[in-house]
Structure formats: C-alpha cells, structure tokens
C-alpha cells in the first residue's frame, strides 16, 4: 500500500491507482471549485475534461486521472 497526504491528512491507497481514484476512495468528493464556485469532481476519467485538476507536489492544474500515486505524494484539492 502507498501512503499519500491529501489536504494535510495521511491516506493509504492501492499502489498503481491514479490520484483521482485514490482521492475518491479517500472520500474526497470535491476536487476543485468551478468559476462560479460549484464543487466539481472527475467526469471523463481520461484526461480531456480537466474537472479532476488538483495540486500535486506543489504543481497546480494537474490532471489527477492521468497521474499514478507515488509514495509520499502531497495533494491539495
């Protein structure tokens, strides 16, 4: 199992998962806020809709559905 940090808390996730799947598994339902403030979460699962964008290891606008979890990753929604 891999350990990552999501919004400051430690979460254990299945290695080989994408960050998006791991976040949903960890109970993070909201990935980002839209322009008008709506909560948003993954839609397409394949990297074209950009609804799943979160900040990964300090890098914002990262498409979490296309990135595999790595031990020690820091994720902020």
């Amino acid at each position: 199992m891999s350990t990552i940090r999501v919004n400051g808390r430690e979460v254990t996730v299945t290695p080989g998962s994408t960050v998006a799947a791991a976040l949903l598994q960890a109970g993070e339902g909201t990935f980002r806020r839209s322009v008008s403030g709506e909560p948003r979460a993954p839609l397409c699962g394949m990297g074209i809709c950009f609804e799943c964008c979160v900040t990964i290891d300090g890098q914002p606008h990262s498409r979490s559905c296309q990135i595999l979890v790595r031990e020690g990753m820091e994720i902020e929604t």
Partner: protein
Amino acid sequence: MIVVVGAGPAGIAAALRAQECGARVTVIDDNPNPGGQIWRADDANTWVTRFRSSGIPLLSGSRVVWADAKAHSLLVEADGVASTIHFDKLILATGARELFLPFPGSTLPGVFGAGGLQVLAKSGLPVAGKRVVIGGTGPLLLAVAAYLRQHGAQVKLIAEQANIQSLAGLAPELLRHPKKVLQGASLQWALAGVPYRTGCWIESAQGHGRLQSVTVRGGRDIWTEDCDYAAIGYGLVPNDELRRSMGENPADVYVAETGEVDLSFVEGEIAGLTAAGYPERALLLHPKRDKARGFAAALDTTFALRDELRHLAKPGTFVCRCEDVTFERLQGYTNFQAAKLHTRCGMGPCQGRVCGPAAQFLFGWEPGSVRPPIFPARIGSLVPDKPA
C-alpha cells in the same frame, strides 16, 4: 522513424505492424499505461502484452502540444519537461472521447461519463456496494454495467436512449459478426436482473454538493432513482484536434480512424503498414476494414441521438464546464467562434473538448479551427530558455 501518437488499440496495432516491417517506431501516449481507454488496466489483453514485450519505445504520460507538419516535428510535454521529437512518418491514433450532453445537475460530483466511471474503476476506484445508474447510448453502456457489477456495484438501471425498434434494426448486422453475438450473449448473462430500458434517458441529477438521485424519463413514465454514481455517455467523438491542427493533407501523416474497437485496430494496422512502406500488405486488410466500417456505421444508425436530448438543458444549465457558461447565454449565436468570443465558451483548459461536441449537438455549430498548443502547456515548454 515512425512516430505513433496514441497507445490504444489503433496505436498498438500500428506500432506492431510497422515494427514487423522492419521500421523504427516510437509511441507517444498521454495515459500512464498503454492500452488506451478500452484496454486500460487490462493485464490479460494479448495485444497490450505483445506491445509491452515488443521493445518498441513508449513515452507514457506524454502529450503532443504542438505539431509542425512542415518541419516534421512534434513538441511533446511530459512531467513538466518539453522535448522535440522528429518524425519521418507520423501515425495519429489518438482515439476518441465520450460525448457529454448537459442536463440539470450534470456537473454534480458523482456524475461521470459511462466510460469515465469504468476507467476510474479500472484505475483503482472501488465501486463495491455503490448504487449506480447508467445512461446514454451505445454498446458501451452494457460493457460498463457488466464491469461495475462484476466489481460489486449495484447497477440499478441501464437507460438507453435509442428505441427498441432501432436496436432491433441492428440484428441483421450482428449476424455478420458472430463474435459480437457471443459477446452480446455473455453480456446478457452478466447483466441478468439489471433493468435495461430503451427509449429512456436521464433528465436531471439532484443532490447537495454531490449526486444523490437522478430523474429518469422513459415513454410516459418519469421517476427518481436514488444512487451514488451515475455513468452517462452519449457515444464517442474522435480526438481529432492534433490532426486538425496540422492543416489539409499534411505530408507523411497517416490517420487511423476511430470508433468501434475492431475498426480502430484494423485502421491502425493499415496505417502502420502503409507508413512503413508496405501499402500492398495494407491493401490485404481492406476487406477486414470494410467489414468493420459496416459494423461501425450500423452502430451509428442504431444509436443515433434523439431530439429530446437537445431539450434537457435548462436556461441555467452549464454547457461549458470550464468557464461556467450557461445554456441561455449561448442562445442566439450562429457559430462556435462567435459564442466563444462573447461568452468564453470553449476557452477553458479542455479547449472545447467537452462543450464543443455538446454545442454541435445542441445548436448545430461546426467545430472551429484548432490552433496550438492543442493541450494546455507550460510557457517554458513553448519558449526556449533565455541565455543567462
């Protein structure tokens, strides 16, 4: 060097065939692993296995952001680092994405694409015990339902917008493809007990900050289904932005048409053989391609979208999800470009990949021109480093 963009069925087929002909091949793919969407996380898939052991270099997690047709080069970004890749021949096997149609509540967390939820499940999202409603159109809905059910989800309903008469029209074509009849039979077995309603679609989704229920319409019936996830997709749209960015008939570029998996695969084979300089070998595959095209065309007819789906969106429903542009704000424009300039529809990170096809269905707007970068890219990727 033959460069293949895309490592789904078409890209894998193209790369293997080109290698078979003795060509040097490199494959560039945005996804973390090969297989595209349909073969994602499918460790048992023969073709993915063959590709992995072929020794063909694969650049995963890599996006083509700019293609220079004249210079025969691609600007590729991966992990924040950009590189230029030159090609002698280029094969575009960029596949397809789902068509998402807007309806009230379609932006709620918990509303996924049909293929979208399956891909997320394949990528590690547990679905056991989740109540799922599946909607939209096409054979994909059945495959998604079977997969989710096999992984413990409670599939409450499959809402197929096509009428039973349309589906019956597919039967003669199916008889020409016995393998598909077998696949259909095994799907039916896997889905025993799951309600499959035709002429039926999801009108709206409800919930506080996340999906809690959907409202379904079928014939004269309208009812609510409580659910945790909705998986809704209205067919496929080709990822043709890279091709369109390269202008008319760019030299040394071969495009594998996309859609149904068998068609994608044989298109990839033909592109690979042709690019490698063996068009006569490619010609031998034309009957296989024609048969696959016939089936794909039959699917398009069977699953054509009904007019009622144009009227699901209410005035306040977001059509452009990146910029939160509502249905009512898009009224009155005659083309995508005008709407874009006035409302920002299509100016967000998806670059119109989601709202464009939706707007085409809703308003009849043809897609506008494509200008690079064709994916959001770092400024550092586009501008050479300044000398110190």
